[in-house]
């Protein structure tokens, strides 16, 4: 729960909300607080809370943008759950999340462990590895990816060396999703940087003590490193999986806007976009959006619940 609760609680503990000045002072603090907060409050009401309520309402209507929404009860949800394309988009998204996130984090952790050793050029490597995280979401890289995974391009030729010829990943419904997975893994730099920062916080004495006890590198990793960086690991798992659920741009560009072939890259948001902005079924699309909110909420809740079992908040890590 650190992410949500501890952060605001900490300073509050250190500093009582109302200083000695008394009620007038407190009122002034309140006024100042809300004045400073006013852009956020306006944004929250207008662009977050309001729209959330609106889309919750749309989810129970038939709304084609032209005529006012018409209440249809649970129709959107029943149609949606039976819709083979919706099922397909769930399948594609889950596959993407479940394959891309662990691989990306594994690579990020591995490289972070490598870079945590102080050696010459370490800073340069760190910077270079981080760069893809900044450009990975661009249309440019989408185009590059489409080219790299085409028939006769580098990946395909590399595969043929091993006698596997799938004719390029881009046109093949069994492979194209893995081109997207590769694009996600390529951006391992962002979680890596966070891992690195976590690794730097692990007290060296712990390792020294373990070495004296005769623990090998694997034992040291398992018994010291992993527990010590578990809060950072938790943070990375949480953010990366939530992001993975929402992937859109790369699927749209790499599949040449169709999220195909044969719906192979029909990630959840792509279907939502098609339903909403192509077919103007805004009610259906809103029902989809809310289902996504609930799903992401569940994943978040499960992660928070599970962290009790594996995340260690040592005083030293803070």
């Amino acid at each position, binding site marked *: 729960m650190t992410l949500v609760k501890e952060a605001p609680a900490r300073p509050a503990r250190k500093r009582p909300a109302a200083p000695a000045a008394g009620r007038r002072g407190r009122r002034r603090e309140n006024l100042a607080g809300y004045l400073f907060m006013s852009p956020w409050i306006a*944004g929250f009401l207008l662009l977050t809370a*309001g729209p959330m309520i609106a889309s919750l309402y749309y989810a129970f209507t038939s709304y084609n943008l032209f005529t006012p929404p018409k209440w249809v009860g649970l129709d959107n949800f029943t149609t949606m759950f039976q819709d083979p394309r919706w099922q397909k988009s769930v399948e594609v998204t889950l596959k993407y999340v479940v394959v891309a996130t662990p691989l990306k984090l594994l690579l990020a952790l591995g490289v972070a462990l490598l870079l945590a050793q102080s050696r010459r050029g370490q800073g340069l490597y760190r910077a270079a590895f981080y760069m893809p995280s900044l450009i990975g979401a661009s249309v440019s890289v989408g185009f590059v990816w489409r080219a790299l995974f085409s028939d006769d391009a580098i990946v395909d030729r590399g595969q043929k060396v091993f006698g596997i010829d799938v004719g390029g990943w881009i046109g093949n419904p069994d492979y194209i999703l893995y081109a997207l997975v590769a694009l996600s893994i390529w951006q391992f730099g962002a979680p890596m940087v966070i891992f690195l920062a976590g690794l730097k916080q692990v007290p060296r004495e712990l390792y020294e003590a373990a070495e004296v006890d005769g623990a090998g590198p694997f034992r040291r990793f398992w018994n010291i490193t992993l527990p010590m960086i578990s809060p950072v690991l938790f943070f990375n798992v949480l953010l990366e999986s939530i992001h993975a659920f929402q992937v859109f741009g790369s699927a749209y560009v790499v599949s040449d806007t169709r999220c195909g072939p044969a719906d192979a890259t029909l990630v959840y948001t792509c279907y939502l976009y098609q339903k909403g902005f192509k077919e103007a079924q805004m009610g259906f699309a809103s029902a989809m959006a809310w289902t996504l909110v609930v799903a992401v909420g569940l994943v978040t809740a499960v992660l928070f619940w599970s962290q009790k079992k594996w995340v260690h908040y040592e005083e030293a890590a803070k």
Partner: protein
Amino acid sequence: MTSATTPAVRTAKERRRLGSLAWHAGALAVLAVVLYPVVWVIGASFKPSKDIIASLDLLPTEPVWSNFSGLADGISGISIGSFFWNSLMYAVLAVVGVVVSSSLTAYAFAKIGFAGRNLLFTLMIGTLLLPYHVLLIPQYVLFRNLELTDTLVPLVAGKFLATEAFFVFLMVQFMRGLPRELDEAAKLDGCGHLRTYWSIVLPLSRPAIITSAIFTFINAWNDFMGPLIYLNTPEKYTVSLGLMMFRDQEGVSNYGSMIAMSLVALVPVIAFFMAFQRYLIDGMATSGLKG
């Protein structure tokens, strides 16, 4: 790994050298894979269109400039420069919006003890985890009804209203780390919150602000879904949409120029990164650590 093949008699120095060699070999291998797409796009933009996919050579045997000169006459009569200008406007407005609104909000969270602060903070963190797509349709309907589609307003409104929770969070963390003695001293001097914010906290928060500004710039530059949904007139397109327009207007006949423009579109981001990588990486690291 090494110990299995190492003969029993091996000096510590040799072992260290071997370790260093393995380290660099590993790091270089990762580097090669990471940089390959970037080097590829540089090489490809100097190749004739028909060689781009088929040729395995990373760099062209004989570099051609035609892909870049092809950019000069624009796409269907619209100059490439206008896409870059529009993206720049979008990015700059976004940066201004995020810096102003997020720092104000962060100041309130970090330095003012107002009633309901913890609740609002929880809500703010909640929006960080909220899938953006649930807001997409109602926001579209809202801006459409305000007749604000095909302008930058829908794209930057949220930035001015501190809806970018990540940056608020980043700044809150940073401001909390500032020595409390400073703002207490300011209070004793009779400074109100506005003065404290402006003359003490804001200047001291420079690193967090720079980090947020650069991230905002890059995110706006890369943004695709926002412009895709809100912009209609080709003259108003950002670079992302310009690239997509290149694809549908000349993607077949002028593939080389499309790749060249992809490269040009990446340049600002990469330049920013090279200039400010410390801020970006430290910013990223803090966000994860203090969470």
